[in-house]
């Protein structure tokens, strides 16, 4: 019985809802915004090929959109931030994208320490 309960705990944790359950998507979006910023920065420095830049920007935007849609708390601050990332133009300024990433990082740290 006790062993069964121990096995159930991780399953229950995996099915949870709320900000804690959204943490994985917040972390994903935080990284996607930072990756996007890095791509746009290096593209501006002429370090990347056009094909790579186009493909990466499109993928990053799509993934940011998917992460935003997967949230269980769509009215939260972090959800608004994530939707703002997904709405950025493909050639958004690196500083703008980095600011989104930093704000999500702050939220992520607060939720982790809660």
């Amino acid at each position: 019985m006790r062993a069964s309960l121990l096995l159930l705990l991780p399953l229950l944790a995996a099915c949870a809802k709320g900000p804690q359950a959204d943490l994985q998507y917040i972390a994903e979006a935080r990284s996607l915004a930072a990756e996007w910023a890095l791509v746009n920065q290096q593209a501006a420095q002429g370090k990347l090929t056009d094909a790579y830049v186009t493909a990466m920007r499109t993928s990053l935007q799509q993934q940011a959109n998917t992460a935003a849609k997967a949230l269980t708390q769509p009215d939260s601050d972090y959800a608004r931030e994530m939707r703002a990332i997904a709405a950025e133009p493909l050639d958004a300024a690196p500083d703008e994208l980095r600011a989104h990433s930093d704000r999500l990082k702050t939220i992520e740290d607060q939720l982790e320490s809660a």
Partner: protein
Amino acid sequence: MNPLELTLGIMTAVGGFVDISELVFAGKAGSTFGYALIWVFVFSTVGIMVFGEMSGRVAAVAKQPVFNLMRHRLGLKLGIVTLIASLIANLITCAAEVGGVALILNYLTDAPYMLMAIVSTAVLMASMWVLPFKWIERAYGLLGLFMVTFAVALVAIHPPWHQVAGGLVPHAPAGLSTREMLNFAYFMVAIVSAVMFPYEAYFYSSGGIEEDWGPKDLPMNRISCTVGFGLGSLLAISILASSAQLFGPINVDPQLPGTTALEAATPYGKIGLVLALLGMLFAVGGAAIETCMANAYSIAQFFGWEWGRHRKPWEAPRFTIAWIVLFLAALGIILTGVDPMKLVEFAILFSILVLPLTYLPLLLLAGDKSYMREHVNGVVGKTLGWFYFAVVTAAALAALPLFLLTSGGQG
């Protein structure tokens, strides 16, 4: 000794270590935990060297590939369970690799991802049909060496070498919260799984039989394992260390394989980027072929069919149909639109569950003097073998709870 003889080990290792899962996973390990997980790569590399050498030795002396052993040593019921579990693990991995090749072609050409998945599967299948085994391993093993770009790029960005060296010492970073500690544990288990993927043993031992190895080839088997897996490990560690240096400080935990290529673009611009992408293309393409062949080998060996790419495709018809169907199944999975990176998480999880069942029969046969004669496991081989068997068994038990608790290492 002809250096080209090492290509089986190099292809197995480059395809095994720096496949699509490692490209993202090593990057995430570095950005999340700095250099602290380097020792897990080194530790696991010794493990795959031990079992790789053992599987090659058994293939050379007893002329038995791993899946033959499984049926005889585990019995029919457990053998079938292992066969089904490894088929699922390898098929998911193969699909992830096909998706990975398509993604990399998308980065190189900006052609549509789905179209690239179809084209790359056709090219991989054509290369398997046309090329003899020796040329498959040489082509993908040697072209995968473009991945050395990552090691060169690491040197170019001048990482803090004392911290990199510190990562070789087994430890966990200080001051981690419970959540971070669980994440760290998940990464440890996943790295063991990704480095010691069962398909590497199936492919390598079957490759030894394809090449008609005998006892005279044992020194080459040992060198091939050491050089091949050592090189694969070095490349994975280079990706991890560059990620710790470049990505960690700016909040990047690579979510896409394309991000990993930025490690080479940062110091070398477009040339570095293209070389890195080409290395990734051939390494991941090689891994797709390895996983597909490992599955076809497993099925054919389990049911006692004619098998091998040293024969013409029509001389081993059921084996040929098996690998064609498996490649098409992998493509079918990708065409459903599933994210290859999600597949990677499941591939790692399934693989670790299969690992103990893969390596137990190998250990038993390599220690059986009636088969192996003077080439039976010595004290060192036996001790290391059973030690790593205990490690993979513990990792298999911990894998599922850790996967659920950390959402597959996402936090």
